[in-house]
């Protein structure tokens, strides 16, 4: 048996077209609520340049991921790792992915619960919110990848309209906040770019979902466009936040993007921000569903455990993890930790992996050539 290549039943496959929505949805979630602040703390009014730099770098990482995957016939990262490092190290690296994805999932859940408690229901217990979210995740993932992707597709459009309501904060923007241009040093710009990493996390999903794509020749375009969409969204909220908030205000906001909606007011909806926080569930839910799907899928691939059983364990751990955390500083630290490890796993690792894949390919070829003569 060749463990490297996977054969996926035609009924399980998905079209490359959906990669656009998968990419945008898994990246845009809890990170984007606060990202302008973190970039701004590094590169000040030039934060938007940092976003552009990060955007370019992330596209390079994505190209590297495609190069790795296209080196093989039809595999995911687990197959690649087994092929490169052997069975046991491959398993170990796969397990790291499982733990990492679980922590990302947990951080998203905790962050959203924190937001709901701050903006709407201060007295509502985290357990209730966590169990509602966990239930929805389990329900969606149990129905399989195609349902998860379908939800992603629908929720993308159901939450896209929120962007329209940023118009009010755009009218409050001040050009002087962007001046003087280019006052941040290149190092500060790069550090700002690094702080976008939590918002770009999730693009590793390509490593796992790639074997499921039926028309692979179109996958590149859709994925890069999806990534471009994420960059556009981060750029948009960063530019508006810089213009809207004073230099002293922005570093103090935990969720600047939600605060941007606080200025929107209608006679029918007096407090639009409450609506936005509620609606934000549609932004984070696809995110969480895809993460949970990945965890259960990897575990099944590595340890041949039933996906349903894995999901139950994940659900219980997630419920406990999100239920018992209460302190804001802990959540912020936790997110920072996830962001830091995510930076290495999601962005640096593929870049390191690529030359290894190439070398291995060359070595194989020369061995074959040697065997023939």
């Amino acid at each position: 048996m060749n463990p490297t290549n996977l054969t996926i039943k035609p009924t399980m496959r998905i079209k490359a077209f959906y990669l656009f929505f998968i990419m945008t949805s898994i990246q845009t979630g809890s990170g984007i609520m606060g990202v302008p602040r973190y970039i701004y703390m590094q590169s000040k009014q030039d934060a938007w340049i940092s976003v552009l730099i990060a955007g370019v770098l992330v596209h390079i990482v994505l190209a590297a991921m495609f190069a790795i995957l296209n080196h093989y016939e039809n595999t995911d990262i687990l197959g690649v790792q087994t092929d490169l490092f052997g069975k046991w190290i491959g398993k170990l690296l796969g397990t790291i992915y499982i733990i990492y994805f679980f922590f990302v999932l947990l951080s998203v859940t905790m962050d959203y619960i924190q937001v709901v408690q701050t903006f709407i229901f201060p007295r509502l217990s985290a357990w209730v919110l966590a169990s509602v979210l966990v239930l929805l995740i389990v329900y969606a993932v149990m129905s399989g990848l195609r349902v998860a992707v379908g939800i992603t597709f629908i929720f993308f459009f159901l939450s896209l309209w929120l962007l329209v309501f940023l118009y009010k904060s755009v009218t409050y923007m001040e050009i002087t906040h962007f001046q003087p241009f280019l006052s941040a040093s290149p190092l500060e710009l790069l550090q700002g770019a690094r702080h976008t990493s939590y918002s770009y996390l999730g693009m590793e999903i390509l490593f796992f979902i790639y074997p499921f794509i039926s028309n692979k020749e179109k996958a590149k375009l859709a994925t890069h466009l999806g990534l471009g969409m994420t960059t556009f969204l981060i750029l948009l909220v960063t530019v508006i936040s810089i213009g809207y908030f004073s230099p002293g205000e922005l570093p103090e906001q935990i969720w600047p993007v939600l605060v941007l909606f606080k200025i929107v007011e209608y006679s029918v909806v007096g407090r639009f921000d409450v609506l936005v926080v509620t609606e934000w569930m549609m932004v984070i839910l696809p995110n969480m569903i895809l993460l949970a799907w990945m965890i259960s899928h990897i575990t099944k691939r590595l340890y041949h455990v039933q996906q349903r059983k894995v999901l139950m364990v994940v659900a219980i751990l997630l419920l406990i993890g999100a239920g018992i955390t209460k302190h804001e500083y802990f959540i912020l630290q936790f997110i920072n930790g996830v962001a830091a490890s995510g930076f290495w796993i999601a962005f640096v690792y593929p870049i390191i992996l690529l030359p290894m894949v190439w070398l291995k390919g060359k070595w194989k070829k020369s061995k074959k050539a040697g065997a023939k003569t």
Partner: protein
Amino acid sequence: MKRLILVSIFLLLSAGCAPAYPIERLGIINTIGVDSDNEDSQALNTTYVYFQFDPNAKNINEIISSKAKTLKGAREKANVKSNFQLVPGKLRVLMMGRPLAEKGVASILDTLVRDAKITDTMFLAVADQAAGDVLHEVFQRSTTNVGNHLYQLIDTNVDQEILIRTTLRDFMHKYYDIGSDPVLPLISVVEHMPSIERMALFRDETYAGDISIEEGFFIKLLSGRYQSGRIELSLPIEEFENIRQKDTDQREEESLFLSLSELRSHNSIKLVSKEELRFQSDIKVQARLLEISEQLELDKEEVVKKLEKAIEKDINRQINQLLDKFRELKVDPIGFGSIYNAKHPTTQEEWRNLLPEMKLDLNLNVNIIRQGIID
């Protein structure tokens, strides 16, 4: 399908876990008045005007006062006095007493900004005495609904561009911006009714002085744009001696009064010289002449031109007077500092020291486009 039903039932039931807020039991705070206490300098006297939805109550408005060290603490204490649960979600106006404003308001406003329940679009105002006294007097002596009245008083005047918009967000924004100071309406009680008589200037977070509403007009003329403003001017009459139609009016007056309305303005300020601290402002004003106290031949171009020149001269004089006042008080409500800061990054203190040396070249262009239906 069975799974779907189970999930739906669970979701429906879990909605019951969220705390309910029956509106009959809520006191929805509409206006807060905050004052510093006379005896204990750290305590805050807080007055709440709130709505109650009790069908038996005569008055839907209720007023309550309490004293505590923090705003939140004051609300807890007020809650004990009230048979309603006081909630701040629809807070519209925060009025601060002048003694408190003189001490600084940042710590109070900071707690409001921190609270996600409080809207950024609520108005701030300063009372020319203790804010609690203003609210109590209006509440007791007048039949009007004090909370709503105050809000609408500010809101309509902002809408008509008589006042500068002074929401919580605007105040905090100007407060945090380098080289820009907030302005708030100053509310006094005239015949038991609240009235915006003047405007309070702030130096950072502290009350620094006040100007008239008419002077407030020029702040917006210099820092923003008018869509439909209005202004009343009095020009020296000597300038119009020869073009005045004496035969139609026998009154002897010293000044020529006129009022401009539907005033549209556009303005751009830039820093011309860093060393001299010289700014240049190009203001274009288009307005309709609605009222004039003398009969002038307004169908003649040279008369209109002359009038425009005289108006420009007068506005120029008034702006310079106002700027002198700002230099003296070391306040910058127009935001020259933020223009300076955009070119040459500075700090609030540095700018504060530079402020008195600041100069402004004003290029004012007034254009009267229409008069009434009679020449």
